[in-house]
């Protein structure tokens, strides 16, 4: 009896694998072939919420433009989406999967740490990768196949430090996550810039899986700081905001692009906190794109769920949208789906996206000189535009 059940189960599994495998291949009669774009993003773990939002932008772009013309022939564009689980070790496995599935170019990842870890895999395989919102300099430094379309942390850190200083802060509390390249890196650049301006800093780090931020908030208060800088993952951020409200923090909270998410506005809504972030895109910057993607999300409850249950646009979604088109441009220029040709074509690719122009400069980083500063309106739970900041 048991053997029969086991056999049956095994058969079911085999057939289901077979069925899934066959699903994709049938369509595309009008196409000369398929080109695969890898999406290397977290869908779970610390950065799951942000990764899903970035993926949404890519998916929407794919929905709008599901084909690309290469040398006069029409190719179907297929997204190969993997979950790197916000984890450096698992990210490497996910990256290897992408490489072996024959993608022409990879987009991602949200979260610099996992991009740095996977960079080696892409480098070895010669697969070009385009970072969407990973801002740590080390992602592209010393890696010829990694490009990126966003600004970098030295820039972002300086913008934030300037903002804090101009708003009268003289002592900053800086919190980062132990072993997280993104937050540690950004805090470093912030500290450098803030000290250069003449400010004082208190730096602290919290370990992985920490949920108790009571003492960090208490430390910021007892050290007499006047700005709380914590560019950590949104998961931790929601807990920090909650705790800050509970203990009546009494100073503005400042963070980088990660915090530009409806997770943050959701956490801050109705609480007595002040949250300020720098980001890539301000909702309303391109009404056509805004309305299009909102309608698309509303039509599909799965997508709405991935965006956190409402249609508030995150900057990473807009960046993901741009990244997809940058990849298409590169493939067009290359005139081939071969990784080596695409890799050679990327540096000369330019694209005018919803988040501004993408031109690749040194190290394969995009040339960007503007960040948008936004503030959370805790009554309505929406972001309010403060200023566009540039540095010379």
């Amino acid at each position, binding site marked *: 009896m048991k053997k029969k059940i086991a056999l049956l189960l095994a058969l079911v599994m085999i057939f289901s694998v077979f069925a899934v495998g066959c699903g994709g291949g049938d369509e595309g009669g009008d196409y000369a072939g398929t080109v695969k774009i890898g999406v290397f993003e*977290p*869908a*779970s*773990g610390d950065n*799951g*919420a942000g990764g*899903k939002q970035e993926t949404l932008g890519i998916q929407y772009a794919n929905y709008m433009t599901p084909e690309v013309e290469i040398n006069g022939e029409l190719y179907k564009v297929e997204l190969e989406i993997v*979950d790197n*689980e916000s984890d450096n070790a698992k990210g490497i496995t996910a990256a290897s999967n992408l490489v072996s599935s024959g993608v022409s170019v990879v987009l991602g990842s949200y979260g610099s740490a996992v991009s740095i870890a996977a960079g080696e895999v892409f480098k070895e395989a010669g697969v070009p990768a385009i970072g969407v919102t990973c801002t740590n300099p080390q992602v592209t430094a010393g890696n010829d196949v990694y490009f990126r379309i966003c600004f970098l942390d030295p820039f972002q850190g300086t913008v934030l430090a300037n903002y804090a200083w101009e708003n009268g802060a003289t002592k900053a509390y800086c919190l980062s996550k*132990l072993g997280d390249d993104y937050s540690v890196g950004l805090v470093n650049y912030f500290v450098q810039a803030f000290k250069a301006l003449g400010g004082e800093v208190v730096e*602290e*780090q*919290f*370990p992985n*899986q*920490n*949920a*108790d*931020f*009571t*003492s*960090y908030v*208490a*430390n910021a*208060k*007892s050290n007499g700081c006047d700005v709380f800088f914590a560019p950590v993952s*949104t*998961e931790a951020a*929601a*807990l920090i905001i*909650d*705790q800050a*409200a*509970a*203990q*009546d923090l009494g100073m503005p909270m400042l963070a980088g692009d990660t915090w530009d998410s409806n*997770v943050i506005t*959701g*956490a801050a809504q109705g609480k007595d906190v002040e949250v300020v972030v720098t980001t890539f895109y301000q909702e309303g910057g391109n009404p056509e794109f805004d309305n299009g993607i909102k309608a698309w999300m509303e039509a599909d409850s799965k997508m709405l*769920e*991935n965006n*956190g249950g409402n249609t508030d646009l995150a900057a990473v979604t807009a960046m993901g949208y741009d990244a997809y088109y940058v990849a298409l441009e590169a493939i067009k220029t290359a005139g081939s789906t071969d990784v080596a040709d695409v890799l050679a074509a990327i540096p000369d690719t330019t694209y005018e996206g919803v988040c501004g122009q993408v031109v690749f400069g040194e190290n394969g980083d995009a040339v960007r000189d503007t960040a948008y500063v936004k503030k959370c309106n805790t009554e309505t739970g929406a972001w309010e535009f403060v200023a566009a900041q540039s540095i010379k």
Partner: protein
Amino acid sequence: MEFIAKWLPYILAGISVGGQFALIAIGYTMVYGILRLINFAHGDMFMIAGLVMVYMATVLPLWVSVILVLIITVVLGCTIERVAYRPLRSAPRMSIMISAIGVSYFLQNMALYITGGLTRTYPTIDWLQKNITIMGASTKMVTIITPVLTIVLVIALVFLIKRTKIGMAMRAVSRDFDTSALMGIDINRVIAVTFIIGSFLAAVGSILYFSNYTGIMPTSGSMPGLKAFVAAVFGGIGSIPGAVVGAFVIGICENIIKGLGLTTFSDAFTFVLLIVILMVKPTGLFGEKNIDKV
């Protein structure tokens, strides 16, 4: 006065988190006392209790959800015991331990599947989450409720073990498994009751813990679970007062260390404490050979 103003927030946080660890630690220590099993799935059950609350509260009034969370967690605890541990009762102890690890990963991955990997926000229980000010330190109501509730529950539990028939049976089983079976004690019933109590306390702990730290991920249970386990070992595994004292010590020390500015080392402290206690006093603070192990 200034000294108090500086340290009170840390002490309060420590006592509160200590109380929550204590409620989890009791589950570890009781199961170990009876079955000699470290129930690795306990921390994840704590997380599941949190998730159940999240989903219940979207459709039901809060007080109904709270009651249902307690019931569902207890049912889940008993089911795990029935399905994953009872069939292995006569197997070597290592097999049942590995089964516990399997259950732990199963629960985590099930939560990953259900939540889609995103953090869920715990519903607001106004009464627990409202802000209060104690001697200048602003905190949540739950910070004060936790230690009180923990101590009340522990006293009730000790009473149950010392004064009731089932308590006597539990003490007997923890002394000698086979002999008590020979004396006509229904072992399965005693074990089921142990899991009921453990799960119930974990559910109460989860309501208090997640009211304070409001985000739930599939891995949210592992760190509190691990620390509660250290607390149970520190206090002497098998001893209920030991687990409670251990949990408070760990909670308070961790927060004081953070207050000293050594934030990076707060977790390291907990695990160094585990190593030191195992080297110096392997039976823990209260884990004497002849103590009632329940």
